[in-house]
């Protein structure tokens, strides 16, 4: 069977995935994709502004099209459909035959017919290309306006704000998000949006856009008012792309949309329409979840015979949640209480800016809808109550009233949900499927997401998924075993807490109070790291040395032949010629191999343990400090030269990187930490690939967190923008200490972030809004570490007892003669096994003992 799919957007792609998963169709699939790249996550489009790349957003698993022999025609659109010949003609001039045709062309942004709408610097918000164009223009602009104050418009306004533009939202209706929320909610929402620094204009009808006096454009409104701006984004609704269907005589609705039945079939039995271009029962669904449902129905219908046995599309819930950081807004079901006899319960807290409304049936037994502004914690559960017709408690108001101190809220347990409850509507995952996956061994949120796909699209259901995970784990009687090892029945996070609260300073004390046995190579370094993060004592005391991994034990990095490498700190990558010469002299004297590291330092390889104190006493004398390259600790702060030298730089990135590096040097953590500071948005220091990345703006610094190079690269995400120096350090203090407090052993910030229940928003709440009230405590803990910094190598070379530990042999002087080097490109390298075995091979002598 030949199947052509027009459109490789979110829904079109879901259809192809569903189709190839059907057992009983041998389909020959061609996909016409008008965009220059295959399907990507349009829902997360705004994340493009906070550093996500087109690749990050891709919805296509690598090799998908090849593996399923799907013919993907990139950059090729459908031009016309001939229903009699059953062919599609493409924009490339090809004519292709089909047995079944699926139209998944989505919609286009509606641009009101305002004179001047086509001026340069006017945009829509739909594709990656749109965002690229906006980014380019944003860099040349000071003021930006979004026309339209709906879900998308607000998301877009936030994006313009993050681009440091003075931002305005212009809305025709009397309130923002007029479709989803009522007046009361609208008021609170407005002040929330204004707090983000966005100016809101309601009841404004734009009549003309002309050239501006100070900015690129001037907008003229019906009431005579004017607004000058450099860029304009239209976000005034969407219209279905039904032009192909119209042209070939398929039925379309009065206001557009291709008419489909419950199987997503158009008036022509061989043509289906799914997603935002389809009109079902007089309605268009502008959300991805209903589109995915249509994709499933269409794929199953095409694969089934007789087709009427296939599942049907029966409409979809349009509840939504705005995904704007710091602004919780959700609308569920009948938000406007339009149902006959509906009754409302309203709670407003004008001080905290919270508005909540419940809409119930006349007798108060069923939930019909809700509006949540300022705090949408209950969204997931209220939605489930509505969808599953769960009987309301006798006093439903308690569902939205703030809980009195210490009391848990009534009536909202996940246990009440039936197994059939659809928890993730984007990917159609039910409670039962989640519970089964937990039973089959998915005991972390990450594993559960990976196995079931729940919470992987819009993420709105993540809190609910977590609750189900916890409840199910409890029900199955297996507690999450995240114990560090056999010696401690605690997670790293719990051990950290025990150490801090109990003021435990030695491993023996920790073991005797909370553990058993001798300890091992897992728990000992964990304990050592926790002690260092909490108390920052010298790591090589008699009781602590035994806990250290070999690298920390010798304050150097062990290499494959048992020798060590040495990396002195070169803060910010800045080094004087004199110090550079010292490094060269030391390397030469001890015969070390030298290499520049990725963190803008110099690594000296090939030293034996007993040489380390000698080498370091020379380095310490020359003013070097340890670089902690051996530790799970703060490593480097990479920087560009910044505004001091660079003609593009807007801030002094080198000074900032020195401040940061000297502040956090020596800090030990669950994993190594890398930083970078860039002096402008050209980002030469690659800050967005670091755990902590700082990028200069005209007004201060943008702070990015949880990036990662290495095996699984991940872009850092914007935590906060335009910070002054003090606030920047304050947020980094909090961020690092919060990570150290809560991460698992060897968990990098990126993985830690992926496992945080509330994701980036939660992190922002904790760090920026101090939602847990931990800010001062975290800062104080950091202050203690900062104030107690001592260079470990300086301390070591001054302590004869400590130096003794570096002897290669307890009962003899000298080094390990098993260490053999050969010369390559003018430096040493370890001899290979083959080289050692050749009888005539002598190798170079082990590095000569210095006089």
């Amino acid at each position, binding site marked *: 069977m030949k199947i052509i799919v027009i459109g490789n957007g979110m829904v079109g792609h879901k259809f192809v995935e569903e189709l190839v998963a059907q057992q009983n169709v041998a389909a020959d699939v061609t996909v016409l994709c008008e965009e220059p790249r295959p399907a990507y996550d349009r829902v997360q489009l705004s994340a493009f502004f906070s550093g996500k790349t087109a690749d990050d957003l891709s919805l296509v698993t690598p090799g998908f099209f090849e593996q399923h022999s799907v013919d993907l025609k990139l950059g090729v659109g459908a031009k016309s459909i001939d229903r009699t010949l059953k062919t599609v003609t493409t924009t490339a001039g090809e004519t292709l035959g089909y047995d079944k045709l699926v139209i998944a062309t989505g919609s286009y942004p509606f641009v009101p017919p305002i004179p001047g709408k086509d001026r340069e610097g006017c945009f829509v918000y739909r594709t990656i290309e749109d965002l690229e164009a906006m980014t380019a223009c944003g860099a040349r602009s000071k003021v930006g306006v979004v026309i339209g104050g709906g879900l998308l418009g607000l998301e877009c306004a936030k994006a313009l704000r993050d681009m440091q533009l003075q931002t305005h939202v212009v809305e025709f209706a009397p309130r923002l998000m007029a479709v989803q929320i009522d007046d009361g909610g609208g008021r609170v929402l407005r002040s929330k949006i204004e707090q983000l620094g966005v100016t809101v204009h309601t009841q404004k009808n734009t009549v003309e856009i002309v050239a501006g006096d100070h900015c690129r454009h001037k907008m003229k409104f019906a009431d005579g008012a004017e607004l000058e701006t450099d860029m304009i984004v239209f976000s005034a609704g969407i219209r279905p792309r039904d032009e192909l269907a119209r042209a070939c005589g398929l039925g379309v609705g009065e206001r557009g949309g291709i008419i489909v039945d419950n199987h997503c079939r158009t008036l022509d039995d061989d043509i289906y329409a799914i997603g935002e271009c389809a009109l079902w029962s007089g309605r268009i669904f502008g959300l991805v979840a209903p589109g995915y449902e249509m994709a499933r129905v269409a794929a199953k219908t095409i694969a089934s015979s007789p087709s009427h046995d296939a599942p049907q599309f029966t409409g979809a819930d349009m509840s939504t949640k705005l995904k704007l950081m710091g602004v919780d807004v959700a609308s569920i079901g009948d938000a406007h209480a339009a149902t006959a006899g509906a009754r409302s319960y309203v709670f407003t807290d004008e001080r905290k800016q919270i508005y909540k409304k419940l809409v119930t049936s006349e007798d108060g037994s069923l939930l019909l809808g809700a509006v949540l502004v300022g705090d949408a914690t209950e969204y997931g559960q209220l939605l489930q109550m509505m969808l599953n017709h769960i009987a309301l408690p006798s006093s439903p108001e308690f569902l939205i009233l703030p809980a009195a101190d210490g009391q848990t809220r009534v009536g909202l347990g996940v246990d009440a949900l039936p197994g059939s409850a659809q928890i993730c509507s984007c990917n159609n995952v039910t409670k039962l499927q989640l519970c089964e996956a937990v039973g089959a061994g998915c005991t972390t949120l990450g594993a559960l997401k990976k196995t079931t796909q729940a919470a992987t699209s819009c993420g709105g259901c993540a809190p609910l998924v977590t609750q189900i995970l916890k409840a199910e784990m409890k029900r199955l009687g297996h507690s999450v075993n995240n114990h560090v090892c056999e010696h401690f029945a605690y997670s790293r996070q719990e051990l950290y807490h025990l150490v801090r609260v109990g003021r435990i300073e030695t491993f023996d004390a920790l073991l005797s109070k909370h553990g058993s046995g001798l300890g091992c190579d897992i728990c*000992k370094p964990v304990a050592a790291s926790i002690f260092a993060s909490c108390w920052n004592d010298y790591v090589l005391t008699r009781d602590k040395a*035994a806990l250290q991994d070999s690298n920390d034990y010798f304050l150097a990095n062990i290499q494959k032949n048992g020798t060590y490498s040495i990396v002195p700190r070169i803060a910010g990558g800045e080094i004087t010629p004199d110090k550079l010469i010292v490094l060269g002299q030391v390397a030469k004297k001890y015969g070390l191999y030298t290499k520049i590291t990725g963190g803008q330092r110099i690594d000296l390889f090939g030293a034996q343990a007993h040489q380390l104190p000698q080498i370091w006493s020379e380095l310490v004398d020359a003013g070097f400090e340890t670089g902690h390259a051996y530790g799970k600790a703060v490593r480097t702060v990479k920087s560009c030269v910044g505004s001091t030298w660079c003609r593009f730089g807007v801030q002094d990135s080198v000074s900032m990187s020195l401040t940061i590096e000297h502040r956090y040097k020596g800090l030990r953590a669950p994993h190594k930490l890398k930083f970078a500071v860039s002096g402008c948005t050209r980002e030469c220091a690659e800050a967005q690939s670091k755990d902590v990345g700082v990028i200069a703006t005209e007004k201060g610094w943008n702070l990015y967190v949880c990036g990662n190079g290495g095996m699984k690269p991940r872009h850092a995400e914007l935590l906060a923008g335009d910070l002054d120096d003090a606030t920047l350090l304050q947020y980094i203090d909090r961020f690092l200490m919060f990570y150290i407090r809560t991460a698992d052993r060897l968990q990098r910030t990126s993985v830690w972030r992926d496992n945080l229940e509330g994701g980036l928003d939660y992190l922002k709440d904790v760090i920026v809004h101090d939602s847990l009230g931990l800010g001062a405590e975290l800062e104080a803990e950091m202050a203690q570490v900062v104030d107690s910094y001592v260079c470990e190598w300086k301390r070591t070379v001054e302590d004869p007892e400590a130096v003794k*530990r570096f002897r290669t*042999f307890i009962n*003899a002087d000298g080094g390990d003669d098993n260490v053999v080097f050969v010369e390559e490109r003018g430096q040493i390298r370890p001899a290979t096994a083959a080289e050692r075995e050749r009888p005539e091979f002598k190798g170079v002598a082990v590095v000569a003992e210095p006089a």
Partner: protein
Amino acid sequence: MSTLWHDVCGVDEIWPNTGVCARIDNRQIAIFRIDRADGATEIFAIDNHDPHSGANVLSRGIVGNLGARTVVASPIYKQHFDLATGDCLEEPSLPVRSYAAEINDGRVRVCV
């Protein structure tokens, strides 16, 4: 090959729950001091040579217990060796030799 008891160092020269390397007849022997919770101090000796990496490093590993076995973890690729027998827990085909060791009058002695 004849085996002899060799005097190596004072017990106090080895920090509790760490290892050191001794050179005995041109062999490298890793010697470990284990201090148990009940106050007993024990000495173990195995080859310093790590068969997995080919480097002489076992004395620098972290010691501890896995179940009933007292072990050291190689600092290079982290395999565990039983200090009493030299068995490698992860790869039984690559054990190391173990040696008799004892404390005598405050001195550590190894039989090699």
